[in-house]
């Protein structure tokens, strides 16, 4: 186990380095720069700014400088948000996104797993069809549509929930619902198909032949086997969800990390692009290692090498 984790960490470092390198050169290939704006800035001022942030140096040298600093935990200052380091921004914005995202993953699991299982148990019945239709909608409808519908009905028409900011628990309801819609639907579908598979297995018949009651068969024998595909999906999905969604954060004016991703790219805020990308990559890798370990716990047949 320890050897496995050590190996995964080694692999993770290589992966993160590759992601950082590709991102670095790709973003520099995109035309434009951080100091272009509608207001004309004098060439001297631009040159001074570029010199301050080291952007006047040749690209390979910039790359080496950046990687060296990053290796020492210094991800630089944001080019657009004056006086803030990239670390400051991530430290400030990530907890907000993580709270909303974490809650929505929780909701997705709590709704998706039972409903998917019920659909499998009632295969071909009305309830199954209903759940399948809802699941398909959840996957097909984009989040901005769901956000808008929620805002319109719950916020504007019924005036049940506040539409802006994150000042009380009520503010969380709509963004969490909107964010959880897709993963809920996806988990329902995963759960339904894997549960159907498990219900047809011989060991379910063995359990029944032992005289075990229906509910115990379901919880003890079926669920643990059927949940594996969900575990696989939830790991990386959690990484994406806790780093925020641009659309949902914009619509509900949530000061989260999701917005920073997009504004950093459109503003060519090079250091912030690098910082957020490396952060997301690290998170995904960590989640995958956790998934592997959880897998091993759920299914003893799996060997970690």
């Amino acid at each position: 186990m320890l050897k496995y984790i050590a190996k995964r960490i080694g692999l993770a470092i290589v992966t993160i380095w590759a992601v950082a390198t590709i991102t670095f050169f790709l973003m520099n290939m995109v035309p434009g720069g951080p100091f272009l704006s509608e207001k004309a800035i004098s060439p001297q001022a631009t040159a001074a700014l570029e010199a301050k942030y080291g952007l006047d140096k040749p690209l390979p040298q910039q790359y080496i400088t950046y990687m060296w600093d990053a290796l020492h935990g210094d991800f630089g200052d944001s080019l657009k948000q004056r006086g803030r380091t990239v670390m400051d921004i991530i430290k400030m914005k990530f907890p907000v996104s993580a709270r909303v995202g974490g809650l929505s993953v929780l909701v997705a699991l709590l709704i998706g797993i039972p409903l998917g299982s019920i659909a499998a148990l009632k295969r071909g019945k009305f309830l199954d069809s209903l759940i399948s239709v809802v699941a398909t909608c959840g996957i097909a409808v984009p989040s901005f549509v769901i956000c808008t519908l929620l805002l319109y009905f719950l916020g504007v028409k019924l005036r049940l929930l506040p539409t802006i900011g994150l000042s009380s628990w009520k503010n969380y309801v709509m963004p969490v619902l909107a964010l959880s819609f897709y993963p809920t639907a996806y988990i329902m579908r995963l759960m339904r198909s894997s549960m159907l598979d498990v219900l047809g297995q011989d060991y379910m018949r063995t359990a029944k032949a032992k005289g075990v009651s229906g509910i115990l068969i379901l919880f003890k024998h079926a669920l643990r086997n059927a949940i594996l595909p969900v575990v696989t999906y939830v790991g990386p999905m959690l990484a994406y969800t806790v780093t925020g969604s641009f659309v949902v954060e914009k619509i509900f004016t949530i000061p989260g990390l999701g917005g920073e991703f997009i504004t950093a790219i459109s503003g060519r805020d090079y250091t912030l692009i690098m910082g957020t990308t490396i952060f997301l990559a690290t998170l995904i890798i960590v989640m995958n290692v956790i998934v592997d370990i959880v897998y091993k716990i759920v299914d003893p047949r799996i060997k970690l090498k």
Partner: protein
Amino acid sequence: MSEYLVDIKNERLSFFTPAGEVKALNDVSIQLKEGEVLGIVGESGSGKSVTAYSLMGLTAHPGKLLGGSLIFNGHQIDQMSEKEMRKIRGNEISIIFQDPMTSLNPVYTIGNQIMEAVLFHTDKNRAQARERARELLELVGINEPDKRLKQYPHELSGGMRQRVMIAIALACEPKLLIADEPTTALDVTIQAQILELMMSLKERLGMAIIMITHDLGVVASMCERIAVMYAGKVVEYGTAEDIFYNPRHQYTKGLIRSIPRIDTREHERLVPIEGTPVDMLNPPKGCPFAPRCEACMKICLREMPPVTSFGEVHYTQCWLNQKEEMEKGAANE
């Protein structure tokens, strides 16, 4: 109370599939006394497993019991609720399945899966249940039981897993053990070991066994009574002696002719039963075996044959036997 442990009378059971009604069991009657071994033989789809499963109340969807009476150990099985059935399953009546590789839950230890049956049907606590599981593993001839209890199914071989399945089945010392082709998925040497184990356990625990198989060799060595099934009917029923030395039904005769024998000469060929099994969605009107029968008569295609008895146990359902018996009776008079 019936003198029989198992008394199935005129059981009719159908599967209502989208393609139509499949009459899986058609007037099946089977009796078995305590401590006896009954073999049910027949080809795939003849209804041998369905008979056994219905006795445990494990008929799979979309199967439905349409008529008849099923009595086991004084319980009227066909009248019982699922909840009442649960108390009997795994307790008074147990089953072992064909494929030990898939019949154990891969994510729980052997110990856990044996203890489950013990905990469910007795008021033993966990420690006692574990002790019982250990005993059971020893009983079925598994070495190092303490180590095995903590192992998962994938760490055991096929033969071992089947022994574990037997241990689970025996957890509450059932009165009846149903073995649904218990050796089909195992290789030959292991087959012999498992059969030997079952017979020795039967001697020791005094339970009755219903052995479902399509291997006549297995039946010959183990069973006191044999039911030959074809297309949802018991076409011939008798003691092992009746079936092997005095078979009367054309299907039974065909089956016995098709067994390879040790004294077969080199170029002698096995005699197969010609034709294909019955299409259960559209069974023939008369005797289901008539289209494949060498001695088929006109009436066989028109009407279902009645039961012809030859003594106390042995009977067939065949027009030819009926005719022979009537002629014999007429000659005697």
